[in-house]
């Protein structure tokens, strides 16, 4: 035997049959739910098994069943449907040339929405770029989000960020960065400050499984563990980092959740397409953090059903129909079916909801366009380019602002 370089590869490439046999599943309801204060040492199976509540016949089962009332589930469903409808329309507008860029979260809506619903309004959220569901849960006006996407005269970022890099200090949604995983250790620092100040707000952050490879991920887990920071560290394992399969990020040899116990943190591997499981796991981690139990790492197993972004074409690197065969299904469909089982929803109500939200998104879009697009209509004042580099504009930026004015003949 000789050493041999191992290069992970996905089970199927374009033209081949999708194969998800690599995915380790647990039956719904099988895994125990530890007490909030339990030691990470006693919950190893939660990092390698899969926390699931909704079974294949859409019943909620097992110890993780969060027992939410039907109304609360309907609110969650609404946010997920809004997220999907919003995503779909924004991609269409991008194709029409109105947006420079967009990123859908199709198939991953529960990861953001259920977590957002399980947290309190005072909790600070540090999302990556594919958790737009959090913006919906926190009630961000659609027009505001669209104006950001359009970099128009009402852009919250004043034309400085790529589309989807939203923020809201008021809604406690941190500014999204294009550099991956940087928010992970920042969320830990925020949580450390909350503990230093004696507040009971916690922080939650999200990153993709691909960007767990960044040193920032390690720093976050290390600092969270060392200082017992009240933070929830979410890894959204949607199987793909653009074209790179999760095995290349280290997911082949062990689960991402298993990195939690390695740092002395609980690691929960959760069915990310199961609204109830995501809610229950987030709630457990939040209660634990709020009561001094420190941080939890949650891996949300899901599937990136859409392209990475509007600049990506996944048919070049994975089977075209693979997401239809994803063993954990679709989060919206599963919650919908569960509500129907509960007698609290119906296909016709669902259709009406989709139509209502579609109309809402369409009307918001119409309004957003009146504030301009990247290339047409009202634009931001160019002078704003020089604001906010510093709190007060230093002399050299004033000089440059004046040079631009002269350059433009003003």
């Amino acid at each position, binding site marked *: 035997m000789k050493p041999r370089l191992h290069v992970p590869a996905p089970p199927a490439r374009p033209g081949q049959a999708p194969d998800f046999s690599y995915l380790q599943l647990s039956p719904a309801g099988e895994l125990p739910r530890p007490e909030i204060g339990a030691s990470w040492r006693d919950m190893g199976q939660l990092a390698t098994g899969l926390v699931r509540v909704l079974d294949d016949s859409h019943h909620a089962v097992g110890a993780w069943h969060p027992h939410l009332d039907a109304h609360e589930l309907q609110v969650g469903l609404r946010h997920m449907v809004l997220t999907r409808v919003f995503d779909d329309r924004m991609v269409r507008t991008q194709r029409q040339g109105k947006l420079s860029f967009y990123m859908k979260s199709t198939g991953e809506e529960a990861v953001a929405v259920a977590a957002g619903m399980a947290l309190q309004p005072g909790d*600070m959220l540090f999302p990556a770029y594919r958790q737009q569901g959090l913006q919906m849960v926190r009630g961000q006006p659609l027009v505001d989000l669209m104006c950001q996407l359009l970099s128009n005269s009402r852009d*919250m*970022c*004043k034309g*400085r*960020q790529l589309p989807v*890099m939203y*923020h*809201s*200090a008021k809604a406690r949604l*941190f*500014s999204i*960065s294009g*550099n991956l995983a*940087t928010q*992970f*250790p*920042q*969320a*830990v*620092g*925020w*949580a*450390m*400050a*909350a503990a*230093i*100040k004696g507040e009971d707000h916690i*922080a939650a952050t999200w990153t993709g499984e691909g960007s767990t490879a960044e*040193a*920032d991920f*390690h*720093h*976050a887990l*290390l*600092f969270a563990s*060392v*200082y017992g920071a009240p933070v929830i560290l979410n890894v959204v394992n949607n199987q793909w980092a653009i074209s790179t399969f999760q095995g290349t990020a280290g997911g082949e040899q062990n689960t991402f959740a298993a990195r939690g116990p390695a740092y002395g943190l609980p690691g929960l591997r959760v069915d990310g397409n199961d609204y109830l499981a995501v809610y229950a796991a987030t709630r457990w981690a939040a209660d634990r953090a709020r009561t001094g139990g420190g941080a939890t790492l949650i891996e949300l197993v899901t599937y990136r059903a859409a392209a990475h972004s509007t600049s990506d074409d996944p048919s070049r690197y994975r089977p075209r129909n693979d997401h239809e065969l994803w063993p954990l299904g679709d989060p919206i469909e599963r919650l919908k079916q569960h509500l129907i089982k509960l007698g609290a929803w119906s296909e016709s109500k669902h259709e009406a909801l989709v139509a209502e939200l579609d109309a809402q998104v369409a009307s918001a879009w119409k309004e957003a366009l009146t504030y301009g697009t990247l290339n047409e209509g009202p634009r931001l004042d160019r002078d704003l380019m020089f*604001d*906010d*580099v*510093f*709190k007060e504009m*230093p*002399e*050299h930026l004033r000089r440059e602002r004046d040079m631009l004015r002269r350059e433009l003949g003003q």
Partner: protein
Amino acid sequence: MAQMNMIQALNSAMDISMGRDPSVVVLGQDVGFFGGVFRCTDGLQRKYGEQRVLDTPIAEGGIIAAAIGMGVNGLRPVAEVQFADYVYPAYDQIVSELARLRYRSAGEFYAPVTVRMPCGGGIRGGQTHSQSPEVLFAHVCGLKIAMPSNPYDAKGLLIAAIEDDDPVILFEPKRLYNGPFDGDPTKPAVPWNTHAKGEVPIEHYTVPFGRAEIVRAGSQVTVIAYGTMVHVAEAAAAAAGLDAEIIDVRSIVPLDVDTLCSSVCKTGRCVIAHEATRFAGFGAELAATVMEHCFWNLEAPIQRVAGWDTPYPHAFEWEYFPGQARVAMALKAVMEGR
């Protein structure tokens, strides 16, 4: 007033800031119980508690990221990077995050973080404990950057940094921690109590960013320097018998262009000195600025004095260091108009 070396002055700045404002916290490797490898945070943990003076893991990227999160949540973190040579793992967090957070969020989020780091050579630190990377940060928009040359400025600039809502990087020339240094390692070390700027108010005061200081007024030539090179330049000009105007830049960003350029326009000759490597060093920016503002007043080409464009070698520290001989050659060249 009290006699302080630069370490005591920096310690006093943090002590006063922590005493006045409960949101000020200190974090870094060895800064807590031990008080820092250079003793700058000595006694702070005992006085303000381990919640406010945190020993951290050896992870500069983690330290700065945590400081950013703390800053966003209302604290004023003072992060120590043990040597400027170690800052690179934190470069992304400083450049892409700390420096741009206010800009990218249109002012909704900002992190008032101060990053302190000892820099420069002359302590037998070899290539991993001697670097002066100020220009790598000066090139980044959104950071304020200062390098004091004496205890008085060190304390005043650090308090100003902590109270500033913008991120600040304070480079501390470690060769100056215990005394002024004129570039001659064969002479006995001189303590700060022999120097006027070793006299430091015990109370709160600030030295504002964006203001250079004319250390010595003169008429024949302007020497623009900062950090250790201020003292080297002063000694070299005196030895050359020149009536030189010595300017301590102090604040690299924002830069006090008026003070620098008024002086050069007056003297007509300019030498720029820093310890960092020459190629694309901050001296290049200074030279370009002087040229833009003073071209018609210049009697001779601007001269630059800097470290060689090599790593800082352990065995040839004093051949590398831009000492008085190198400054003297530049002064001679600029006076002869060559």
